[in-house]
């Protein structure tokens, strides 16, 4: 008796899905680096101790810029690109 329950994924499709996973990970990894930085150097996040700080010190904080860049990349570039990669 022979059964063919498992079907082989074509190599090209598997490669495409590996690429999609890698691209999907770029944005979250960038944002995760920002979150890790905020934990390692909380003094760089001026919003945590805002008294007496001016506009620039509250608005421009490197860990938050990193998080924002990761989110923006994920929303604007990674998601549509992954959708295109997964299109047959």
């Amino acid at each position: 008796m022979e059964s063919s329950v498992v079907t082989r994924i074509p190599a090209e499709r598997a490669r495409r899905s590996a690429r999609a996973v890698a691209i999907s990970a770029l944005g979250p990894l960038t944002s995760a680096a920002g979150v890790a930085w905020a934990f390692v150097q909380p003094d760089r996040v001026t919003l945590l101790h805002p008294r007496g700080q001016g506009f620039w010190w509250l608005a421009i904080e490197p860990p938050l810029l990193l998080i924002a860049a990761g989110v923006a990349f994920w929303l604007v570039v990674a998601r549509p690109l992954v959708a295109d990669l997964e299109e047959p």
Partner: protein
Amino acid sequence: MQPPAEMVHWLFATGFLLLGLFLVAEAIAGREAWEKRRWRVYLWPGLVFTLGVLMWPVMAFYTNSAIHMLAHSAWAQSLMAAGAAELGLASGKLHHPAWRALTFVGLLVSGTAFLVHEQNGWFFARSAFLHHLIGWTLVVASLVPLARVFRPRSPALQSAFALTFVAAAVMLYCDRDVAPVFGHISNLAGAPHR
């Protein structure tokens, strides 16, 4: 109401990081998938051009010395030229691959500008160290876009090009106006703040 110089470095670091992410994504996805949506083709050349335009306010408002002004304006022009050439190639209005050499010029001028406008030694303070490090990194890495003129579709060169911007972004994020580097700070640098 001008932001401190270190914040300008962090904002440009974010631009460089996005540039690196776009190029990494393009390298992973492959040219065919990347070009499926037309707007994506203009993404990184447009960002390079925008960074060049944004260098002009830096040139105008952060004029510590004549050499700063000259370095920033040369930098603005070379980034705009590189971005414009890549935009022309992306839109199909330019065809000859030699136009990509302007990206090599842009990176070389950027590296040289970092080196020229840093007048202190490596261990004067952290910003001096990073300006030397970024300058030499960009000067050496400018060979990558030069190689791309001859091999524009090489994935290895595309990846190296992308990682150059990610590395530059990391170094720019580490910049502080007055801070020690590996325990060294000159007495002339001033008192480190937060």
